[in-house]
Structures are given as structure tokens and as C-alpha cells.
């Protein structure tokens, strides 16, 4: 009787909570066991509205396409034309974002310089100063001027081709940095004037200025020290892009670097990365509007970063008004970060290729985000540089392919009118029509 009764009660499928998912529960267990929040590298991993939610229309009767491989589509860009005596001239509008020696190994920094130079673009120092390797191998090197001022000195400043004053980065608007002791080798410590092996906290605010009026004076000082020769960029997190861009231009910036929340960091709290800031797609139009309102669009160049992966992203960023883009995480992948050839070793670290983000622990099997001498040996800077160059060239070709299809003989001739959006969110953020309509949320003269 009992057996029969049991057999007629249907079994239900175990049901997981959408709120308390396995991911969430594992985070709770980890916090309970360790007493510390999760720190990781990279940018936002959550699903966000992206450039994938936009499409190009291509040519039609009213727009003539250009012939691929026959008709030119230029890709060059000049950055710093407002005040600098020597603006930076790049062959392609894809630059390498700031990443520090310390977060990355010396050979990885060298590879970034090699790859960028071979592709005709610039690379950027990071929080930790300029290394001779990266200066030597970078035809055009942008020197970051950060709140920590680690490794900051006027000799290096004068060697730079541009200066980038970092106010924020997309992964952590309003946050400083922390390079954990594991990565503080003797050389890293010496460059930063700190003891070996201790955690290095990077301040979130600059130590000697506060607010836009001070920034104007700080920019003047840097220009005086470098004889007004090189461009001064201001790097902003995608927090309040309209107002921040306006204030940076008012303070005298030659170029704005604007970083969305998909932009990576060497290390910060996961909760910071995932819950502070705005997606790259959402920040470009307000920044462009600010430049247009000031009559400075294309005069103060806009470099957009945060999750740029391919030529389509490049083309879309430019069509929405950017002058160039910067890549960081994608460049690391091109060098070999998270490559499945190291799958066994990623497994030993409790992760898998493609998901490894504990860059701060310095155990990167690919030898890129580490200071471990044995792991570093695995990475060949010449090969890495070549891979990066290939990747940059492919991205450029992809962007040109799209631009030609839209009838443009320069990437900068792409425009918002070339785009439609696949989702309401993307339409609202990019201010381009929802596909199949002539409308987007917030379009002047319409209501929603």
C-alpha cells in the first residue's frame, strides 16, 4: 500500500532560487569563510546593454558604398590639437589603455609597446611609473598621472608623448587601487618607493588638487613643465559624462578618455566593479553632447574605452561621436590572457580559461598579470607584440569594412544616422532609432 502511494506522487524538479542562485550562495559562503569581500581584476561581467545592441544600416540608394580593397577608407586620427605643440598622430583609432607595471609583468608591458607601435598607435603607462622597456618599445607612449604618483618624476614626464591625468576608471568610479603584497617584487617596490611585500593602496583622489578649478591649474603646471609640447588627456570614469566632460574641457584638456564599466582594473572589489558606473554604450552620447554644446567636438578628442572587442565596436563608438577607442582587457586576451592552452593550470587555481580574474594574486599561468619570475618566463614579448599587432590590424580592417559599406572614406565619417538599435535600452542610450522605426525613447518632439 505504501509503495503504491509513493509511486503516484510525481517528483518535482529541484527548484533553484533566482534570487539565491548558486553564484550568489557561493559568494555568501566565501564571505562567511574569509571575512573579506571578493577582490578581482577585469571589468563588469554582468550582462549589460552593449554595442552588440546596435546595427549598421549599410548603403542603399541614398548612400553609395565604397569598393572594398579598392577605394580608400582612412583610419588616422590626431589627438591633442587644441593646445599641444606636438599632437599625437595615430595610424589607427585604437589605442592601448593604461595598465601598470606591477599589475602586469615587464615583458607584458614591452609586448603592449611592441604591438601598438607596429600597428601605428599609442600605449599607456599605469599606476607605477614608466619602465625603460615600455618607453623603448613604444613609439608613442602616454604617461598616466595618477593620484598615487607612484614612480612619478619629471624626467619621465618629459619623455612622454602625452600626459593622461587619471580622475577615474570605469571599473571603479570613485575608487582607488590596491596592489596586494604578493605582486610587490623588489623592482615594483623600488619604483613605488615602498617596502617589498606590503599591500599598496592607491589613493582615490589626487593629493594636491580638488575640483575643476584646481584641475585647470594642475593642467597649466604640467604644461609649463613640459613646455606646452605634449597633449594633456583627462581620463574619466563613466559616472556623469556630460558634466565631467564639460568640466574637463573647461579645465583645459586636449582630449577626454571616457571609460565605461566594462573597462577592466587590475584589482578591486567585485561589488564595486558590478554596481558602480555606467555601461560604455550609455556614456558616449552625453559626452559628445557636452563637446558639441561647447563647440569642441572633434577639437577636443574623445577616446572611448570599456569592453571594446572588435572592429564593429570601434566603428560604432566612432559613429556615435568618439574620435578613437582604447582597449585594455581585449589587448591582454590578444597577448594570451585566459588562453585555454593553460586550462589545467586554471583548474588548479579553481577556475577555468575565460573566467580567470584573480590577477591581483600574481599566479597568472599565462605570465602576464604576474611578477613571478618563473611564470613571466612563459611569456615572449616579441610573440605577444606580434599577436597584439595582428589583432589591432584585424580590428581596423573590420571597422573599415563596415565604414566602406556605409559609404565612408574615413572612419570618422561614420555617424549616428548609420545606426539602428535592437532594443529599447540601446535606442535610448545611443539615441538612434529602434530598428524598423524612426523613434527612440527621449527623442526630442516625441513622448513616451
Amino acid at each position: 500500500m505504501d509503495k503504491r502511494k509513493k509511486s503516484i506522487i510525481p517528483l518535482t524538479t529541484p527548484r533553484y532560487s533566482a534570487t539565491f542562485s548558486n553564484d550568489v550562495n557561493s559568494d555568501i559562503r566565501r564571505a562567511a569563510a574569509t571575512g573579506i569581500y571578493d577582490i578581482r581584476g577585469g571589468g563588469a561581467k554582468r550582462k549589460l546593454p552593449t554595442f552588440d545592441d546596435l546595427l549598421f544600416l549599410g548603403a542603399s540608394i541614398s548612400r553609395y558604398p565604397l569598393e572594398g580593397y579598392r577605394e580608400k577608407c582612412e583610419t588616422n586620427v590626431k589627438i591633442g590639437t587644441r593646445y599641444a605643440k606636438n599632437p599625437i598622430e595615430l595610424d589607427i583609432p585604437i589605442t592601448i589603455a593604461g595598465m601598470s607595471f606591477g599589475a602586469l609583468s615587464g615583458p607584458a608591458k614591452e609586448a603592449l609597446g611592441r604591438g601598438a607601435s607596429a600597428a601605428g598607435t599609442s600605449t599607456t603607462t599605469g599606476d607605477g611609473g614608466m619602465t625603460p622597456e615600455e618607453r623603448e618599445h613604444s613609439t608613442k607612449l602616454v604617461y598616466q598621472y595618477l593620484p598615487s604618483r607612484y614612480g612619478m618624476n619629471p624626467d619621465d614626464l618629459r619623455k612622454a608623448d602625452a600626459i593622461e591625468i587619471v580622475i577615474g576608471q570605469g571599473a571603479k568610479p570613485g575608487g582607488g587601487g590596491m596592489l596586494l603584497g604578493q605582486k610587490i617584487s623588489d623592482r615594483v617596490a623600488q619604483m613605488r618607493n615602498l617596502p617589498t611585500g606590503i599591500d599598496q593602496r592607491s589613493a582615490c583622489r589626487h593629493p594636491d588638487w580638488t575640483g575643476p578649478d584646481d584641475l585647470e591649474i594642475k593642467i597649466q603646471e604640467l604644461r609649463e613643465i613640459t613646455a606646452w609640447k605634449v597633449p594633456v588627456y583627462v581620463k574619466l570614469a563613466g559616472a556623469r559624462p556630460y558634466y565631467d566632460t564639460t568640466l574637463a574641457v573647461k579645465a583645459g584638456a586636449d582630449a577626454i578618455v571616457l571609460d565605461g564599466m566594462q573597462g577592466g582594473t587590475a584589482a578591486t572589489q567585485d561589488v564595486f566593479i558590478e554596481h558602480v558606473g555606467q555601461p560604455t554604450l550609455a556614456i558616449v552620447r552625453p559626452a559628445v553632447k557636452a563637446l558639441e554644446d561647447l563647440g569642441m567636438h572633434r577639437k577636443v578628442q574623445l577616446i572611448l574605452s570599456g569592453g571594446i572587442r572588435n572592429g564593429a565596436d570601434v566603428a560604432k563608438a566612432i559613429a556615435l561621436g568618439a574620435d578613437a577607442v582604447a582597449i585594455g582587457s581585449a589587448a591582454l586576451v590578444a597577448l594570451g590572457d585566459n588562453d585555454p592552452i593553460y586550462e589545467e593550470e586554471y583548474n588548479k587555481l579553481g577556475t577555468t580559461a575565460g573566467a580567470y580574474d584573480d590577477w591581483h594574486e600574481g599566479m597568472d599561468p599565462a605570465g602576464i598579470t604576474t611578477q613571478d619570475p618563473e611564470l613571466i618566463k612563459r611569456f615572449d614579448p616579441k610573440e605577444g607584440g606580434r599577436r597584439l599587432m595582428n589583432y589591432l590590424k584585424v580590428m581596423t580592417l573590420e571597422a573599415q569594412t563596415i565604414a566602406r559599406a556605409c559609404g565612408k572614406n574615413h572612419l570618422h565619417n561614420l555617424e549616428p544616422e548609420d545606426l539602428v538599435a535592437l532594443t529599447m535600452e540601446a535606442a535610448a542610450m545611443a539615441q538612434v532609432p529602434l530598428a524598423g522605426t524612426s523613434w527612440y525613447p527621449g527623442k526630442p518632439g516625441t513622448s513616451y
Partner: protein
Amino acid sequence: MLQFDLQKHGLRSLNSALQEQKEKTNQTSWEVINPKGSHSIAVGIDAPIEVNIKGSTGYYCGGMNQQANITVKGSVGPGVAENMMSGKVVIEGDASQYAGATGQGGLLVIKGNASSRCGISMKGINIVVHGNIGHMSAFMAQSGNLIVCGDAGDALGDSLYEAKLFIRGCVKSLGTDCEQKEMRPEHMDLLKQLLSEAECDAKPEEFKRYGSARKLYNFNIDNSDAY
């Protein structure tokens, strides 16, 4: 001595002339008149020259100085001698916020008082203040020596690394991870030398030393209240 009228010839012209001086220049003595609170005076010099500024200056006077001896016969605005690498900057009057910020070398002497955040993030510079300093001074100071003949404001040496702080007067409060340390003979010697270089007649034995308790050097959840 070459006299330069800042109001007449302009800032770019002054800094350009000073920055053109090299190691073995014969033009070793400069006087700047009519500074009238201008910003970025005598920044980015890299030569063993004397620059006397007759009056008060704005922000970043002597910024990133290398080798030069700069004297200001007046008071200075924020960020005097910021990121100085070497040389000497002497202020006859008072200094505003962030004096000597991130300085990596050389000697900054302030004969009056210095405002808040004096020596913030200092990385090897020596700073001697004849008067008092304001709050949050030597915040995240990494290395070098801050000597104060008067009093220090709140939160002295917050999040301090390896810089040494010597205070003769009262300390209103210590910042997180900053503590009083014993004075050893080498500290007396250091004080004697720096006080002499700063033309200060205070006696080394009148000072107390403060430094990092080094409890925040590696993250520990049990110290989370301090972060």
C-alpha cells in the same frame, strides 16, 4: 643676477628661461619680481641655480624641482614644491595645503606655518616647518622626514608608510596606524642636520618621533574598523 619681471614678461617666458638652464650654466642667480600670486612659478627646473621670488605665489611654486635653490620672500599657495626631486625650496612666509605633496627628494623649508595635508604622500622629501601644520598632514606618507617645530593638527600621519615625523609641539590627534616611536641616536643626528640646513634653532631633544605602527600593511579583516 638676472632680474625677471613676471607681470611684464609672462609665466611661459620665465619657466622657459629657467628650464633652459643646464648643469653647467653660468647664469646661476635669478630674481623674479611681481609674482603677484601667479601659479606654477619656477616649475620643472633641472639645474643648480638660485631663484629668488620677491613676493607671494599661487599654486605649485617650485613644482617637480630638480637641483635648484628656490626662495620665496612671501607666502605660497597650495602644492608648493609638489613632487620635488632634489634641491631646496625655502618659503619665508606661510604655505597653503599640500606643501611638499609626493616629494621624492630635496629639502622644503617653510618658515611660517603650513596648512592641511602638508607632506601628503611624501616619497623621500625632507620638510622642515618652523611653525605649525594643519590636519591630515603626512597622509599616506611613504618615506622621507617631516619636522615640525610647532604643533600638528588632527589625524597626523594617517595611513602612514615609512616616513618619519618629528613634532616639537602638541599633536592634536594621530591618524590611523600612526604611533609615537622612540627617539634613537640616529634620529637625533638626522634632526640636528636637517634643522641646521633649515636655519632653525630648535633642539633635537625637544622633538617626539612618530611613525607607522605597520598594522595596515597587509589586509586583515580584524582591522576593518581602521580602513
